[in-house]
């Protein structure tokens, strides 16, 4: 019963707030207990679980005993149990249980059992149900008696499916809850496909579908498997890593095309890019073997919260900015149009040089990894070990008037001070307010310093030779 209905029926009732975590915990336990009884248990919806008990009556004596056993193992949940040939009728039977009878076994045919049920239990769109009610068809039985061709014309495929259920024809197969997460798409050709472009056209469709599945779950594929059934030949199966984790159909397609082309060119010297002469393709399956989370990591890196500040000194948006600043006196400026991936390439190429200078010992743990792919950087970012920009050092001036700056123990006269350039960000947990200055020092050395307006302290951001 919906909470709203309950409140209407019992306005004086005290209703406890829902606890989804606790609910999931108990749901997992229920599924676990049921999987001890049958190997096929389907997590149907929030309050319903379906299981296949075919043959268990032999083990327990009869169906009632099976139900009693289930009732016993889930005693604390007081389950309502319905048994029928089809899952739709079984579910309906369980809804019909009324205390103290917790078990309802359908002894007649499913069709007979469902005959008097209200039409709204059928899987029909609500407008269709409304229309049927207006026509005076209020029970499943009345719906079952309507001619199938009339149903088909008026209510389409959904109407026909519901009509079959109403007639007790329920061939649904249960999907076990504990089956592994699989992203797999297959296409079988009615006639063997000999045209290479035709094959690729269909692979594109598979890739699109996998892209949709991955993106709907915020996942990226790391490793993909392709299986191709070829006429007059053994199946060709290959697993390969993508150049970088991706959820893009184009990436899968490029790699698959490359592998397929290589496979067919290898097998036949006569193979052109258009036609496969030594046997057409009967079936292609594309499946993802290794997944990594997508959005979660990016959010970690891109969000502008304290965590990222601690670990990356700034958000990615500003990381690029900082890299720009960094590069001014270290390497070179990033082009304006740099994207996230490009930025990491620059970091990657920059690290060995940075390592040589070896001025920041605390960075070595990161630098010894050498060149990293974007995926690795992202993965490490999530782990919290990435520190790309160093925390700045406090600036040491020789005297009160700040005419000399000391760098690595060496005194430099300040020839020119350019600035300030003020940055204030009140939105961070620790608000930032800084005045940046560019100092030109004796000996042709340049320095970027900032004065922290909050802490009242000078820092050196970097040195330019």
């Amino acid at each position, binding site marked *: 019963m919906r909470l*709203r209905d309950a*409140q*209407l029926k019992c*306005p*004086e009732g005290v209703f406890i707030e829902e606890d989804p975590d606790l609910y999931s915990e108990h749901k997992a336990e229920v599924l676990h207990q049921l999987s001890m009884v049958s190997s096929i248990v389907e997590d149907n919806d929030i309050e319903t679980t379906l299981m296949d008990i075919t043959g268990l009556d032999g083990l327990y004596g009869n169906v009632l005993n099976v139900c009693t056993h289930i009732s016993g193992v889930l005693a604390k949940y007081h389950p309502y149990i319905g048994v029928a040939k089809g899952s739709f009728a079984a579910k309906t039977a369980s809804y019909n249980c009324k205390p103290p009878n917790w078990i309802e076994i359908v002894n007649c045919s499913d069709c007979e059992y469902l005959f008097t049920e209200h039409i709204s239990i059928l899987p029909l769109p609500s407008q269709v149900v*409304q*229309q049927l*009610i*207006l*026509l*005076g068809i209020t029970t499943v039985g009345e719906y079952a008696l*309507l*001619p199938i*061709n*009339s149903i088909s*014309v*008026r209510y389409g495929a959904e109407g026909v499916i519901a009509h079959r259920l109403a007639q007790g024809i329920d061939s649904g197969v249960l999907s076990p809850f504990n089956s592994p997460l699989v992203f797999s798409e297959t296409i079988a050709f009615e006639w063997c496909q000999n045209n290479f472009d035709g094959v690729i056209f269909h692979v594109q469709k598979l890739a699109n579908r996998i892209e949709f599945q991955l993106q709907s779950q915020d996942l990226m594929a790391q490793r993909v498997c392709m299986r191709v059934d070829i006429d007059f030949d053994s199946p060709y199966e290959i697993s390969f890593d993508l150049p970088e984790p991706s959820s893009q159909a184009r990436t899968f397609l490029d790699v698959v095309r490359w592998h397929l082309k290589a496979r067919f060119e290898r097998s036949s010297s006569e193979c052109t890019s258009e036609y496969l002469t030594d046997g057409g393709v009967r079936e292609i399956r594309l499946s993802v073997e290794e997944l990594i989370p997508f959005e979660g990591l990016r959010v970690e890196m*891109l*969000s*502008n*919260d304290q965590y990222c500040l601690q670990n990356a000194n700034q*958000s990615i*948006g*500003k990381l690029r900015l900082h890299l720009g600043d960094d590069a001014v006196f270290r390497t070179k400026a990033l082009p304006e149009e740099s994207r996230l991936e490009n930025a990491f390439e620059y970091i990657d190429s920059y690290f060995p040089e940075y390592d040589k200078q070896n001025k920041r010992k605390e960075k070595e743990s990161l630098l010894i990894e050498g060149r990293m792919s974007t995926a690795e950087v992202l993965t490490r970012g999530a782990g919290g070990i990435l520190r790309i920009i160093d925390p700045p050092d406090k600036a040491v001036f020789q005297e009160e008037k700040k005419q000399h700056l000391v760098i690595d123990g060496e005194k430099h006269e300040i020839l020119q001070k*350019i600035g*300030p*350039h*003020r*940055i*204030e*960000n*009140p*939105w961070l*947990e620790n608000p930032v307010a800084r*005045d*940046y200055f560019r100092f030109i020092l004796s000996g042709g050395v340049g320095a970027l310093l900032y004065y922290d307006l909050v802490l009242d302290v000078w820092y050196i951001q970097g040195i330019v030779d």
Partner: protein
Amino acid sequence: MYAELHAHTNFSFLDGASSPEQMALTAAEVGLAAIGITDHDGLYGAVRFSIAARNCGVKPIIGMEINLDNDDHLTLLAKDRQGYRNLCRISTEAHKRQPKAEPYLRFESLAKWTQGLIGLSGCRQGAIPKAVLKQDKRNVVEIVQAHTEIFDKGCFFLELQNHLQEDDLLTCNGLIEIAKHVDLPLVATNNVHYHTQSRRRLQDVLVCIKNSSVINHAGRLLRPNNEYYLKSPEKMENLFCDIPEALENTLNIANMCDFELAQPLDYGLPGASVPIGNNEYTYLEKLTWEGVQTLYSGINSEISGRVVTELSYVRENCLAGYFLTVREIVKYCKDQDILVNTRGSAPGSILCYALGISMVEPISAGLLFERFMSKGRGNPPDIDLDIEHQKRERVIQHIYNYYGRDRAAMVANVISFQKRSAIRDVGKALGISADQIGLMSQLMKQQDEGVTLKDNECIRSNSILNNAVSISRDIQGFPRHLGIHSGGMIISSRPLCEVVPIEPARMLDRTVVQWDKDDCADVGLIKIDLLGLGMMTVIRRAFCSIQERYGERIEFEGFTFDDPNVYKMITAADTLGVFQIESRAQISTLPKTRPACFYDLIVEIAIIRPGPMTTKLHRSWIERRLGREKIDYLDPRLKPVLERTLGVPIFQEQCMQMSMIAAGFSAAKADELRRAMSRKRSLHNIQILRNDLMEGMKRNGISNSRARDIYGQIEGYAGYGFPEAHSCSFALLVYVSAWLKYYYPAEFLCALLNSQPMGFYKPHTLIGDAQRHGIEVRSIDMKVSSFECVVEADGAVRLGYCYIEGVGESHRDIFDRKGYQACESIDQFYYQTKLSRNVLKALATAGAFDCLGIDRRSALWQIQAMNLQDNIEMRGVIQGSEEDVSFQRPTRMQQAKMDFASMDLSVSVRGMDLYRRQLNERGVITVQVLKQISGNSQGQNGDVFLSKNGNIRSRQEVKVAGVIISRQRPKSANGYVFLTLEDETGLINVIVKPNIVERYIRCITDEASVEIHGELENDNGSIHVLAQHISAIQTKFEYPQPRNWC
């Protein structure tokens, strides 16, 4: 010294973070010589800003930052009147033919309108600073020269800004270099976006709202620091110490600018067409006397004196053209058979009556002319026209076409952030989840923000939510975008776009000026309000219907307003559908107040309204009318003013007169008080006048406590200012609509049904009421019905197709052709009408095809399978071969269900009649029985007692059930909820106390029909049930959703 010449207020929508008033006040505080307002692409805040700056002693400069090609900004300041005209033109052109909120002007177009303008090179978004940053010197010089050429000599300056951003110094140095090269003067500005640094966070949030972004992801959309505030001369001197001439030039420019919005604008009403040999005044005079001769049987000295006084005022103030213009509009309406009347103070004028503008005769109604026009007013009178709501757009378009689209525009309505919209937008900008925003919004809805949100543990412990609450509080009242005023129009003798910028409105074929009604009034623009009123449509339709059916022509002029039958009906609170007195509050009051004459109606509609009810003054008036409370005038000198309303101030005129008599206010000051009362910011303004009022009363020997009482009455009145003339004009419609309901109920119902949506009740309730009055209402029939409802020859009302779900105005032509009425099958009907399947299904469900001998279910079944193809051969042919399916005839309950599903009303089922047997078994009585019991019980069977204020009341335990037709939870009612229930015998009001509301809130808010156990109370003929227990009644069909009112 320094003058800020580049400042954005919050009228740079979703960019500026301070109001014009805050900006002006701060400018005065920091010692600026002058301040220039330069909002984006418009003069939206110019009037408020000018007034505020003048009040603070700072010189206001009117300007604008215009968006040119390539998103280049340029700052423009009005040097003189011509410059101001050009600013208006430029803004108008920039908005013309552009998508809303994306104004843009080509540089070449700008060149046409730079006379009288001073140009500054703009912020970092300006073409020149952008070119300087690119360090393309040759290009920069070309751009600078192009700009210099289009402005008058010495009127273009290079604008230096230093917000301590990384490239500011580079830009400034580049501009200084260019200035030397091309010999141009420099000027320093600060591109101000808020008056104080603390507003920076608010500005960031506004930017995020504008760009639909979130603070954490906004990046470079946000400004990098807090330097865009209104800086003092000293701070600007520090920033530009190397270039003192840039600061000096700010003062030079301020001196060059010699235009203030306070001056009368070049505005005049369009001249009316006047016969040769007359001028506007003489023609008006002639028309007035002609009108008076026609309308009055004998002209006495009072009438002629009043005419002479009003005419002399019109001549002194050159208002003849205004009256003639309004007369022309009214004449157009009358020629087009559109019913029109005035509201507001205009019915107090005999001129309006004589010219046919108003239907109210002011002398016998005792209406004051001074409220409409007086020497002390200082601004022109306001004539508001009420027009049939379904034909108002026709009148508006006539005005556009008649006076020219460049000379007429609607007044704007500045849509500002309210509590809930503020928290919603701020929450989104701060990245708060939709759930949390919903929660906060809900809390705001339920209780006062200050108390609830701060006390909420969840909000208190979360800094982001805290931020959201505090910023949303600051943002409340900020303009968000421009809407259209409900009916205000400005008409001008010269192109209006030289007086005020105009922009296209979102509504097709409409344009809107950039100022709201108060701004327009402040600069002397005369607004003519064209307001749509549903009841005008009803009355006109009913009059037409009566003439068609009985050949009897009814006109307003023929009413004498004294029919006892009408007043008897009103006293019995039998007023569903009657203008203004049909609400729950009115219905519960009418039996107590027992209106017996026209003036009673005037008072009734003025006092039973949300405003007066907040102050509880209505109770005093009712008690005094019933003779249970002594009439107290607070001061004997106020008796002549308050006598007619039993000592209770109800009308604006009374408050004006009270202040004049008690405190010796002049008419002008009293009018100032009146205007303060009627404006949104009235309470604040009234408090400013408080001291004067109190002192005046003290001088006149009124004791402190009495003075406080008088002030309390006036202050409390501020929320609901209402001129007596307005009430009088409305009372006329009350009487006429009541008269129609009494004498021509079928025509009245038909007119009401054809004028929906309007009024307090849904059509189902209106039909029920008519049926209880013996009117037969028939359902839709394919052979008979038209698009609209009609009264048939035998007096029954036939529903029109417009009530079928899915049928709209676009189907009118189809149904008015009527060729389909000859069809003998559904297929033929479809062939004739080509309606969609959904409409056909709704028609079948409503029983429209019953006349073909096809019952509803068979028709529906047939339509579900019809092949609605374009191919004529195939059209209507049922797909495939089908076995016959027969359906049971629907029961009455099922038929009702089908009616509600297809029309949201039923003519065959009323209230709870289908459940009456079960209800009877439970001891639930009908409303009719309830009223009988109530009549008998008072002083007999019931528990009779005296209430605290001495009222005689009776109480009795009852059970009643019905469909909820309205729910009210007024803020002033301290948590009480008022329900109106309908059963098959009538309506009953139910009062639910807060503790009961809390317990049964779900039932009250979610259920369509309920059973109430409670006490029946009879308070001097006004009966209601005080609920103690509420339970839902599960019906097998859905009643129309009740209307919820605050």
